């Protein structure tokens, strides 16, 4: 093909070069389909299917969003409330094993196994039921065809805010895993839209954060824990939208384009399909627990059991305490003690490590996690802690995914920095505003 001589055409050529050829192909395909349909299709009442009927309401201008909220609430309520008893079963199982490992004559080995491995990985494994139930709920929603509708429901709002509707699909995937969400931004049109979506997708609450919410909400808000967890997920969506608007109005300006998306008919999900998806995704969590988190729990135990004076020092003189105290002054306004700060530092590797670190630090110190948290945190600090966990970098793997997708260290560092600052500011606002109204 010879290049066009007209400069305006040349410009169009450049713009087209940046658009994904798959999208051009899809657009052409839809144009052909549209032409054929105009010739052969006559719309009639008889074609009004059950799927169309449901879409009339689920994609309704005003009811679509409230219905989406009901569905999301049901999903998180299911995840939290149903899994509680199964979590207790796993806790009882590990307590039973712990009763034996603590009797081992060698105190170092006994502490490593009981406080380090069982207190760390064993504790994290108690969160298998909610994570599996969350994936089951997401699989059911995907298989019914509702999840793609959710993107449509949100499209109207996102377009009004100058964002691309398609951006909501990666954001929804972020409920499962932030890495998957960042990778899924490839479907978003336009460089600026895509970069915005990459930057805000880590704000969606991934499954790794769920154990933290379950633990904290269960301790501080036992009667409304399910609703508190739901609100954390909603806060993630709201923050993602607010931050995206700020980016689009400042550093990443670009016109939004309309969304073209094929909606399949609604289907009744099969038990085999939904459980299979749940198993495949959930297994990833178990693998992480068996590898990275196991290694992390041993490292955390070493840092908690050892100090400059050697083995068996009081927890306040351990390396973990030294590390936590180094950054504690920064987090003092939020009400976080050194134990929480240490947990947050380890949370950079993976969010599950936050709770794991807290469990080990308190176990080595000889204090039960629940009573320790109740005595060192107020309900307001607990909310600030959950908000901080929600908004700061999800894990190292997500950093890697952002680097890969943006192809730039500059944007990767920016992503990490803005999330840290955002997490700090919003948590501080929770403490200040909450302090005015509730204390």
């Amino acid at each position, binding site marked *: 093909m010879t290049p066009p001589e007209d400069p305006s055409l040349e410009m169009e050529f450049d713009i087209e070069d940046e658009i994904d050829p798959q999208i051009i192909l899809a657009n052409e395909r839809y144009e052909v389909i549209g032409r054929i349909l105009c010739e052969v299709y006559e719309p009639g*009442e*008889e*074609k*009004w*299917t*059950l799927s169309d*009927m*449901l879409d*009339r*309401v*689920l994609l*309704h201008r005003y*009811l679509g969003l*409230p*219905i989406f*909220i*009901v*569905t999301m*609430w*049901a999903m998180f*309520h*299911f995840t939290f*409330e*149903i899994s*509680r*008893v*199964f979590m*207790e*079963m796993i806790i*009882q199982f590990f307590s039973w094993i712990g009763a034996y490992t603590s009797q081992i004559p060698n105190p170092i080995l006994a502490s490593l196994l009981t406080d380090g491995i069982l207190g760390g990985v064993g504790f994290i494994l108690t969160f298998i039921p909610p994570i599996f139930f969350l994936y089951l709920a997401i699989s059911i929603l995907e298989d019914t065809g509702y999840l793609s509708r959710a993107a449509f429901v949100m499209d109207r709002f996102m377009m009004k805010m100058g964002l691309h509707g398609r951006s909501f699909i990666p954001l929804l995937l972020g409920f499962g895993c932030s890495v998957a969400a960042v990778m899924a931004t490839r479907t978003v049109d336009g460089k600026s839209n895509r970069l915005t979506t990459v930057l805000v997708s880590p704000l969606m609450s991934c499954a790794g954060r769920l154990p933290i919410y379950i633990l904290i909400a269960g301790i501080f808000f036992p*009667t*409304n824990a399910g*609703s508190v967890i*739901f*609100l954390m997920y909603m806060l993630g969506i709201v923050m993602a939208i607010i931050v995206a608007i700020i980016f689009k109005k400042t550093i990443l300006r670009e016109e939004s384009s309309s969304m073209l998306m094929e909606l399949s008919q609604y289907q009744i999900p099969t038990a085999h399909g939904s459980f299979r998806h749940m198993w495949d995704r959930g297994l990833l969590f178990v693998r992480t627990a068996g590898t990275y988190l196991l290694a992390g729990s041993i490292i955390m135990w070493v840092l908690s059991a050892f100090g400059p004076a050697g083995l068996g020092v009081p927890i306040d003189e351990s390396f973990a305490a030294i590390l936590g105290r180094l950054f504690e002054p920064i987090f003092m306004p939020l009400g976080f003690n050194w134990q929480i700060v240490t947990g947050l530092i380890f949370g950079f590797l993976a969010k599950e490590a936050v709770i794991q670190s807290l469990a080990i630090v308190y176990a080595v110190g000889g204090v039960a996690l629940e009573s320790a948290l109740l005595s060192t945190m107020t309900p307001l600090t607990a909310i600030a802690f959950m908000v901080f966990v929600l908004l700061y970098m999800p894990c190292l793997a997500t950093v890697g995914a952002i680097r890969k997708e943006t192809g730039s260290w500059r944007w990767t560092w920016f992503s990490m920095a803005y999330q840290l600052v955002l997490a700090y500011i919003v948590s501080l606002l929770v403490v200040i505003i909450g302090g005015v109204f509730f204390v």
Partner: protein
Amino acid sequence: MYREELHLPEDSKWPSIFTLLIGNAYLIVGVVQVLSSLQWITPIIGFSDLIGGFLLIIIASVFLTGVKPLLENNKEGYAFVAVGYILAALLFALQILVILTNGLGWFLRFEDWIAWNIGNDITPSLWMFVILMTGTGSLWVIGNMRDRIMGVTEEGSQE
């Protein structure tokens, strides 16, 4: 499934009245739950969840939006009724699962479940759905009986 296969009633008068009633019932119970959870009125057992109250109001609004098209004999109104039923069933099923798992914890004598009382889990989302289904069943039986009687009368008059 096409519209013809859905077997929607030809006359939407009674479904619209029923939808109006059930929508208002969900609305009233939802508002009471919100007020009770905020302790603006005397707290009621099972009415402690604020968000649960808002969800009932959302279900009510879905039902009530369907009333107008049904009154105009527009079949699209049934779409709102169907989605209202689905949402109500979703919350009902969820509450049943909560009761079952809490019952399991109580049966196994786990510490957190020793003081568990089923009364706290009998929430409005549970019994409102029972009322909804009872009402629907009654309407269906009455409708069938009416059709049968009308059919017999018409046959009698033809003879």
